[in-house]
């Protein structure tokens, strides 16, 4: 579904990604793990076209997307949920969803407001509330729901568990499993290994802009030295 090969990206003059390769298949949850500043968010943004890739290939559903502007990438069915959530604070919950709305798409589940409110019941009670007056957890739900309104085939989730209360993290894990159940492919970036173990089938470890490990979640769980070297703080 999503295939990244030898991706390089810069922030201004700083070379952040040094040849990242990874892939995610339909119906699969893949975690991109790494410490702060390892390049997780940049990798997400480079795939989405928000940071133009300097070198390398990104293919999505069999089509090269590494030269496309973000809106074209989104319209191919790749959804992006930013780490900072980037809720439209002046807009109500339903208006935030409206901005994300795209036509139905073959080979991807079609989302409606009602279906999303079923997935994130907290949101159903605050349809008219401005995005700026919601808690962090509610905003995190809304930002995912907003992206799902575009009926994506694959979603990039940038640090979905960051800064959330444990009970909300639990809900988030359930939601991600539900997305997997719908047949979506999910690529999530995380620092939280425990959370990733609960939801992901496979994992990559990124450090200093390079992939250091790629394999099943079970392999990573079994290898303590790997976790020690790249993930422990």
């Amino acid at each position: 579904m999503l295939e990244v090969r030898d991706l390089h990206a810069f922030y201004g003059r700083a070379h952040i990604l040094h040849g990242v390769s990874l892939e995610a298949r339909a119906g699969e949850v893949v975690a991109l793990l790494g410490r702060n500043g390892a390049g997780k968010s940049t990798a997400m943004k480079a795939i989405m076209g928000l940071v133009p890739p300097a070198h390398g290939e990104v293919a999505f559903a069999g089509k090269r997307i590494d030269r496309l502007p973000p809106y074209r990438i989104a319209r191919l069915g790749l959804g992006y949920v930013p780490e900072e959530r980037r809720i439209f604070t002046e807009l109500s919950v339903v208006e935030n969803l409206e901005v994300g709305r795209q036509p139905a798409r073959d080979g991807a589940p079609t989302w409606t407001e009602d279906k999303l409110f079923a997935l994130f019941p907290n949101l159903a009670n605050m349809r008219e509330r401005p995005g700026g007056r919601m808690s962090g957890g509610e905003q995190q739900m809304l930002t995912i729901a907003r992206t799902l309104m575009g009926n994506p085939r694959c979603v990039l989730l940038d640090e979905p568990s960051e800064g959330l209360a444990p009970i909300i993290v639990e809900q988030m894990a359930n939601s991600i499993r539900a997305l997997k159940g719908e047949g979506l492919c999910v690529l999530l970036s995380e620092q939280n290994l425990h959370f990733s173990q609960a939801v992901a089938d496979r994992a990559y470890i990124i450090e200093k802009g390079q992939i250091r490990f790629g394999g099943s979640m079970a392999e990573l769980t079994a290898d303590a030295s790997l976790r020690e070297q790249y993930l422990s703080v």
Partner: protein
Amino acid sequence: MTFSSILIQLLNGLAAASSLFLVSAGLSLIFGVTRIVNFAHGSLYMLGLYGAYSLIELFGRTPLGFWSAVVLAALVVGLVGVLIELAVLRRIYRAPELFQLLATFAIVLIIKDIALFTWGAEDLVGPRAPGLSMAVEIMGKRVPAYDLLLIVIGPLVLAAIWLLLTRTRWGALVRAATQDREMVGALGVDQAKLFTSVFFVGAVLAGLGGALQIPREPANLELDLAVIADAFVVTVVGGLGSIGGAFLAAVIIGVAKAFCIGMGSVTWFGVEISFSKLTLVVEFLIMALVLVVRPYGLLGKPQAAQRVAAEPAPPFKVPSWGFALVWLALLVIVPWVTDRYAAILLTDIVCFALFSVSLHFIMGPAGMVSFGHAAYFGIGAYAAGLLLKRAGLPMEAALLIAPLIAGAFAIVYGWFCVRLSGVYLAMLTLAFAQISWSIVFQWDSVTGGSNGVFGVWPSPWLADKTVYYYLALALCGAGIAFLWRVMFSPFGYALRAGRDSPLRAEAIGIDLRRFQWAAFVLVGALAGLAGAVYAFSKGSISPSTISIAQSTDGLVMVLLGGVETLTGPVVGAAIFTWLRDVVARNTEFWRAVIGLVILLIVLLFPQGLVGGLKALVMRWREWPA
């Protein structure tokens, strides 16, 4: 004043407020979504007024002819807006914001000359609205029926915009993009189409604002800058991006102006106050007051920083001594080997070079964009002239004291300005420049009003044009060298630190406001020096030295050369001054020619001329590697 005359002024003001609101709402919408300060918005208003005039002539002076002309004119202006967006702005959305500003200046110049070509230089007085030319009697006074209609149209349009923004998908997209347009793009929305549609709506509003004024105001070529200044004031007073705020501000300003006209001269406690003379400044006084009390306008909110992946400004490089000496030698030799005219043109160029470098200092290293830099240039010029003619000082003394007076004004103006930042700051500088302009323009007994000051000639030993050129070169050259030197002093570093990260600069103990204030005064004095030198070279001073057009000329010079280099503003000043001289001698439509040249440069070199050439050289050097 009786109650009925107060009511009449109120109605008058409300009628004027409607058009003001329409044009400001359009400006505000466009700025919100595209972050472009569209200087050409006043030009669109002007086109609406001219267009309505011609269409009414075409359709006939019947109610149907009148109203279809007004609506059609607004729609045509909307299409002009779309054309501007597609042909120019779409190509430069990734360029620095200031460069987009430069492009809109170029469009102002081009539209002005298109209007001159199409409609001529004479004012065109439109017909009264057929069917509405009678007056309605209210409390014994007669009020034009058309004014009452305008009073109704304003709130109707406000309601329509509000519905559009809150009840449609388009409105949700516009409001979302105003906050975070990159995220809107990542959700699959084609920003280019959204921008084009916003430009269309904004331009239609400007065109409608102009077209509706046809029975009240003659179409003329000065409207573009006059209206844009008014619209800036209204949007800033109301709060950028707030449509309701724009309406409130338009009403306040429209009514305040009407009262100033209506009250005429009033004697209070033995002091005669001429309110009609206040008309030209009252809106700027309101704006200055509002911005000091509420820095984001009446209904505005602090602006969310738009996410742009722009690189930080690169450090400046000092021009080498060898480079400077070669140029200096050339500048000294040129008048010897060419004619007297070259000396005159070169004098202009060095004056504008200092003007432009001083503007660059405040915009570039200090990060405070000024839309009203002509204030200090003009005050310097007038101070020099008045010290010579009215105070009877010798010319040399007048020349040296004038910059101090300009600096003194900068102390006052700067105190207010450094409290703001970004677009609000730029608008406030424009307000102060306009206040200065209208004082100069109206104070006949001292400044000579619209005629200006005559007989401002240098002392006999400087009478020769070439000798005076050397003086100008020495003074302005020293001013430029001084500003460049200051840029690399701890003071200059502190300013640049404050520009790049105000919080961090303050956290390491820099009192940023004081530094910015000092920078304001410094560049004010040096712009004043440029103005004083310029005044004596011309022998006369007119209010145009302090006008908006003079301020925008300065911006064009800086941006044309490029903000990111030191030599850019000098090159920009030279090219602009030379080009204007050459083109103006050959065609009546010199503005359009300059506008087209600017557009070409904007599209080819989005970093300015000097920056663009440097990038080319860099690329060429890096080629083998």
